[in-house]
């Protein structure tokens, strides 16, 4: 019974407190201040939100704010003049929608950046594997005491490994080109923000990876490598040429996205390394081509670029054609022709054709001109047959003899 009485007293006290609380008076000014404080707080939270989930939660809070203060709309319209309650809430919602849209783009860009980074990271790992394999084969060749046949097998594997590596690098830079070319300035800016927010570490930075490949390829070109032949150097020249081409197309975008505060340093370093790379690839390729021609007994004038190579070929063929014209009775020139023709058709137009064209060692127009010259040379160099003139002369002598005999009779 006593318990029941105590409970009843507590209940009454609670009800009295509840009623008093329900009757709590409010200051209009305080209501407007409460609204404006909550409004400012939400506005700040919306401006600084960093995820779509957070924005969605804030949009719910805007709805709750509107519901909480909707009964005070008259007071708030006066307090918020020249704005009003409805417009203020709509402004918040609009800010939230804009922020949500921006965050959606950023989140998509971050996902894209992450995907790009993973892709680049896989390139880096694959190139490292290929480098390791090629280097171990090169070391094996250098230290090999095996028989010539076994050594030849090692060299073949090494060249194959280098070819695979170059092919992979070409695919990688083409993939980079597809990914980064034609990015809008907004996309570059958003990816740049993502990259600067620390989501990319140095080893995954495409600039770092490109620079490492350039340095590694240049180093490889600079170290004498007797295991490689002209075709390998032509391929390496093409890889270098493609690197330069891709850098000129997407270098600015990569620098804008991944350069950060070192933008100028990256630009300078990669440009210098590319120049060095180009010089080394070019020197090796032309020297190797020169050596190959010498081995084929094709003695051209000196050349070290596309133009001088074409001029040397053109001079060689026209000179040989002229010599053939003057020495029509000998077969020496025809052997020289056949020698050159073999090199031209087998190597330039067949085995090396892809690299010759992609690296613009010779243009299609230059190849076509030399082709025409070669046709002329063939005509002039071909050994002449003197049987018909001899038979004709003999026949004429017989006829003249017969006429003289008949006339004497």
């Amino acid at each position, binding site marked *: 019974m006593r318990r029941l009485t105590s409970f009843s007293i507590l209940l009454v006290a609670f009800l009295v407190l509840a009623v*008093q609380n329900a009757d709590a*008076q409010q200051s209009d000014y305080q209501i407007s201040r409460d609204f404006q404080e909550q409004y400012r707080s939400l506005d700040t939270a919306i401006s600084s939100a960093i995820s779509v989930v957070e924005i969605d939660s804030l949009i719910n809070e805007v709805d709750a704010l509107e519901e909480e203060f909707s009964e005070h709309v008259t007071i708030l319209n006066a307090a918020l003049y020249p704005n009003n309650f409805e417009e203020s809430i709509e402004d918040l919602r609009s800010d939230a929608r804009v922020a949500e849209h921006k965050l959606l783009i950023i989140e998509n860009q971050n996902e894209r950046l992450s995907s790009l980074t993973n892709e680049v990271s896989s390139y880096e790992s694959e190139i490292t594997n290929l480098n390791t394999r090629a280097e171990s084969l090169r070391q094996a060749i250098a230290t090999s005491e095996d028989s010539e046949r076994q050594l030849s097998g090692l060299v073949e594997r090494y060249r194959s490994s280098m070819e695979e590596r170059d092919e992979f690098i070409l695919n990688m830079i083409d993939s980079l080109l597809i990914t980064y070319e034609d990015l809008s300035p907004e996309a570059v800016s958003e990816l740049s923000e993502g990259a600067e927010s620390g989501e990319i570490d140095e080893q995954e930075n495409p600039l770092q990876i490109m620079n490492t490949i350039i340095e590694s390829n240049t180093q490889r070109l600079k170290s004498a490598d007797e295991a490689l032949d002209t075709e390998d150097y032509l391929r390496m020249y093409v890889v270098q040429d493609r690197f330069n081409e891709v850098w000129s197309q997407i270098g600015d975008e990569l620098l804008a996205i991944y350069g950060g505060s070192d933008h100028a340093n990256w630009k300078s370093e990669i440009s210098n390394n590319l120049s060095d790379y180009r010089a080394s690839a070019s020197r090796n390729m032309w020297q190797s081509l020169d050596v190959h021609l010498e081995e084929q007994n094709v003695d051209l004038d000196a050349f070290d670029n596309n133009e001088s190579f074409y001029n040397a070929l053109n001079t060689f063929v026209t000179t040989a054609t002229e010599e053939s014209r003057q020495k029509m009775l000998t077969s020496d020139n025809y052997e020289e022709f056949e020698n050159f023709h073999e090199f031209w058709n087998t190597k330039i137009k067949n085995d090396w054709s892809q690299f010759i064209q992609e690296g613009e060692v010779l243009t299609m127009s230059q190849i076509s001109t030399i082709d025409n010259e070669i046709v002329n040379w063939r005509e002039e160099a071909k050994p002449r047959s003197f049987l018909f003139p001899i038979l004709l002369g003999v026949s004429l002598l017989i006829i003249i003899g017969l006429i003289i005999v008949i006339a004497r009779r």
Partner: protein
Amino acid sequence: MNLQKVTTTTICLLSILIAGTSCKTFVVQDVNYAYQIESVLTPGEDGMVEDLRHGISFDIQPFLNEEFGEDSEQEIREVRLIRNSKGFYFITANQFNHVYVMEPTEGELKLKRKIEVSEEGLSSPAFNLREALVQLVEMDSNRILSLNENGIQERNEEEDQS
């Protein structure tokens, strides 16, 4: 002679009538001066408070002198100001025992009524406007007094102070 007097008087009356007609006052009725929401103003170092929104500024010191005496160094942090529909300003602050009803005149606020609202000083006053009346709300005690320029309206008229 009489005719001359009558004529002179008539001319004078007509002149007065014409002058009276031309000086007729232009008046707009039913003007509502009310603030929908009170202004809470912070006095500057010089004692001036300024309500930028409603375009009024005045010195708070005369109110402090009136409330706490000439020699008092009592300071207040906020002044609460509201205007009713008839254009009277209602002014009070924390620790005040009164609400001051002030009538605006040329460059002046003239005391219309000094309404005693507390014996121990208000601790957390606020003004709300409810139709023609100004409510003085004491937030701590939930006490409400409805005021107009003549004093407290919903309590005994005896409590009004002039």
